[in-house]
């Protein structure tokens, strides 16, 4: 393994001072938190940083708190395990806790952090193979496009067809989460949805707009009174796996029977970023949860969710899979 420096700052400012401004150096200095993605990349020689900036000694970044206005504030060092078990998250931001719980194994959740999860790199087996010089690694071809693409994107693909692997991102986008990005120059806040970029939108070797000198320090999820949510992930191997497809559904409902007044629907595992489908969500509005009409609207939402899907040779199954998951997720919400 290439030798690297290990910096252990004790303040956020010290950590920020370690980061390069130069885009060309972004892979030579890497932030280190749980290490669950970074170490696997280093072991496979996909990145060979000269410096790791350990964030774990910076106090306070692991907090999960409910602000007075009901906003959920998650520090980037909060572990997935802690988030999955956090009482208010489970009660008021259910899909976030469910997404955290669906990640990896108990061991990975006890180490993996929220910041690391949101910033993790793709799992595409071409990307992860050192000997395949794919687009994501600065090569000229996305081998998945014409190759073995069972696990790749059906939506938003091109020129790269990776799917974003983060469960948490899908759930957080459904709840309109904002992220705080800090650099030595200051701070910016943006919708998590805008944090992710499509391969066609910018640098194909990146999945986010994070600058090399920035740290994603916090995630803020606004209070959503009267909302319920769920995250439903389909894993090929139930014990631990990345999503073949996933859906995060959030609905605001009232009355008896409960009638949906507003809805969010985001797909995971099918596109290079969390795939927000507002038109599909709109199809859910106005119908009663659990009614026959509700079942029809779930199906309609499923149809709208995959509008524009362009399956590759081996992943057409993701279309019915996503549709099935949407129906099941809304059924699960109706049963609550």
């Amino acid at each position: 393994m290439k030798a690297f420096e290990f910096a252990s700052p004790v303040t956020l400012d010290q950590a920020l001072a370690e980061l390069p401004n130069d885009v060309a150096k972004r892979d030579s200095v890497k932030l280190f938190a749980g290490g669950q993605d970074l170490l696997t990349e280093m072991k496979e020689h996909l990145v060979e940083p000269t410096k790791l900036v350990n964030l774990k000694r910076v106090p306070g970044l692991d907090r999960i708190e409910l602000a007075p206005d009901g906003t959920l504030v998650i520090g980037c060092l909060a572990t997935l395990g802690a988030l999955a078990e956090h009482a208010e998250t489970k009660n008021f931001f259910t899909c976030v806790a469910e997404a955290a719980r669906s990640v990896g194994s108990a061991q990975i959740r006890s180490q993996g952090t929220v910041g690391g999860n949101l910033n993790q790199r793709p799992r595409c087996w071409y990307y992860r193979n050192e000997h395949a010089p794919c687009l994501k690694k600065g090569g000229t071809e996305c081998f998945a496009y014409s190759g073995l693409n069972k696990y790749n994107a059906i939506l938003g693909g091109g020129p790269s067809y990776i799917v974003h692997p983060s469960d948490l991102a899908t759930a957080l986008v459904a709840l309109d989460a904002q992220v705080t990005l800090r650099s030595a120059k200051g701070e910016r806040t943006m919708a998590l949805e805008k944090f992710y970029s499509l391969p066609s939108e910018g640098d194909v070797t990146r999945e986010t707009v994070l600058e090399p000198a920035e740290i994603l320090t916090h995630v803020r999820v606004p209070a959503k009174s009267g909302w319920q949510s769920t995250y439903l992930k389909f894993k090929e191997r139930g014990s631990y796996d990345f999503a073949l497809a996933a859906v995060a559904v959030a609905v605001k409902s009232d009355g008896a029977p409960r009638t949906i007044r507003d809805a969010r629907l985001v797909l995971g595992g099918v596109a290079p970023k969390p795939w927000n489908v507002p038109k599909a969500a709109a199809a859910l509005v106005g119908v009663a949860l659990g009614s026959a009409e509700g079942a029809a609207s779930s199906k309609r939402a499923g149809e709208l969710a995959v509008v524009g899907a362009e399956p590759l040779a081996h992943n057409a199954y993701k279309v019915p899979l996503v549709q099935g998951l949407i129906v099941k997720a809304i059924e699960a919400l109706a049963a609550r």
Partner: protein
Amino acid sequence: MSSKLPASPLEPRAQDGAPKKKKILVPKVENGHETMVEIEVDDVAGPEWGPREKLRLLNHEFVRVDAVDKVTGRARYTHDVRLAGMLYAKFVACPLPHAEVRVDLSAAKQVPGVVEARVVRDGEIRFVGQPVAVVAAKTREAAEDGARAIKLDLKPLPFAVTREQSLAANAPEVNRRGNASKPDERGDAAEVTAAFARCAAAIEATYSVPVQHHACLETHGAVVDVPSNDAATVYHSTQATFASAGEFKGPLKVSDVEVINEHMGGGFGSKFEAGVEGRVASELARDLKVPIHLMLSRKDEFLAAGNRSGCTATVKLGGTQDGKLVALSASVDRFGGLGGGSHAGLPYIYSVETSHRSMRSVYTHLDGNRAMRAPGHPQASFAMESALDELAYALGVDLVEIRKRNVGDVHAKQLERAAREIGWAEHPHKSKPDLSDAVVKVGIGFGLSQWGGGGHPECRVTVDIAPDGGVRATVGSQDLGTGVRTYVAAIVAEELGLPLGGVTARIGRTSYGPANASGGSVTTASLAPAVKHAAFNAKRSLLEALAKTLASAPDELVLDTQGVYDARSKRRLSWKDACATLPPAGISAVGEWQANLASNGVHGAQAAKVRVDTRTGEIQVVKMVCVQDCGLPLNRTGVRSQIFGGMIQALSYALFEERVIEPDLGLALNANFEDYKLAASREIPEMVAILDDDDTRGVIGMAEATIVPGHSAIANAIHNACGVRLRSMPLTCDKLLLGLAALKKG
């Protein structure tokens, strides 16, 4: 001297001095087929397992004697061996399936900590992952760095990694004698054609299974120590400890090799040879004069340590209206990489009046297959059980009835038992799949297994009784994972009236006495009789010695759990007191294989119940049942564990496992435990293991039978649940969703 006992433990004679003879059946293997042959042996009073109801330990349930050592990390595996001055060696593998390789070692030799770098193989490389160079270094990290520093000059050559590529008109040459072997034909094709005309119905379909990996948790490798010019010690993760000792002698150039293999982390058929890793470790240890630790990396293990060959079988099967099988024709392609592949043949288990089959190997630029738990049988099972199911539905015959109609009595009885346990009587879809609009559906499927599992005379076991009452049973045999150490102790404890903890079993070392290689489930039937014989002889020697001390006779002495009772003097001695009378050297007795204690040929029936969610294609196996015979079960917990392990491995094969090689790039895409998916805790269904206690024979190995039919039963259950026939494993949601969509369209 007792009239009931022969004069000497190892030279039995009848009373008149002339040995009496008796005829017994023993297994004989010819061309891979095991049959029973009659041989004549001396008819002497020898060890017997005795009536089952009188057994105190054997045929009961008990925990492995080494269980705590294993789960606490105390058990020492080859990987764990650390010797003074030892170097860690690491391979560099060729990433391409076919290439001209030149190796540049110069940079590696400059890496701090690297002691040696060598070419293992250059020139033409013929499979992905073939080791081409090796580095030996003072730390594992330095070995990794050294391996990275080796530069490979690769000239890619045209390759074939799939069946289609290998058989294409312009395919590169994989094998000098052709990319496909000459088909091996059995049966008369014309007769079969005529027989199909007599069938009430016939089905024809193609079934395929992918290449599966052994996925041993301990990778292949050895730690080689050559402390002198004429002797060496090799710690080797092997299922053939004794053959291994012979193999290592060559490259080590020494006259004596002691192989040590106290615990091993799985073999499943892949660990019979020292392999390139054993040879290279030996050469390094011999030349550098320091111990060498060379264990394959996980990636090396996936690519260069064998596999279960894949297969495609096109089968036509016909039967009478009531489900009697009349005609079968089959054409089988085996995919064993550079190897020939393995297939048990068709028809499999079920009797078919007339059959013809043609079978060949299709070669690719991938490492050769090796034996894997019931080699060739799961492949044959998948095609046969699937085709049989399809025919049953075509005929409208009950899935259990059609099976019973075409097998012998033992299998038929076991099928009934499995059907009862899985809930067949209450199941509404016995001859038609559930085609209702229900979104979540339940189906049931079945499959049968068979195996030999007989033993042969290869083991020599020593039982020592010390004057302090300590008992040790010693034999060099490895424990492949079936619980050898435990039953060695238990058999001796049973014979001597001791608790299980009263006997220490020492195994896994060539100097402990010869034993067989563990393959073909032969270990139990080969070793257990020799252990019993040694214990029997030790007991007799003990009683003979005691008789002298007590001025009694051996046949007046009774040894049981209370110690020794002398009927002549009406005295009782505790075990400890009895042993205290022994001379300082104690007693040492040897045992060898006894044909009457072993038997051969096991049968099994399995059933699987699955739940299918038609919205997502989720397949959940909810229950599996295995009814299995095995002669005398030495440790019922051990037998059940083997059954559970076999069912889990078959479930994993059914639902997940598949080697993926990128067809255009030739790269291995899932040579790791993330992408090569194995079933884990949540995939494990309710499992019921039923031992067929009607079987009163001697001990027989059964471990391999248990893996044969589980995946077939699961595939059949999926069809039964929803009407989609998945003919290509693994049975994944993408295939099911597309099948459901096709079904809907009609």
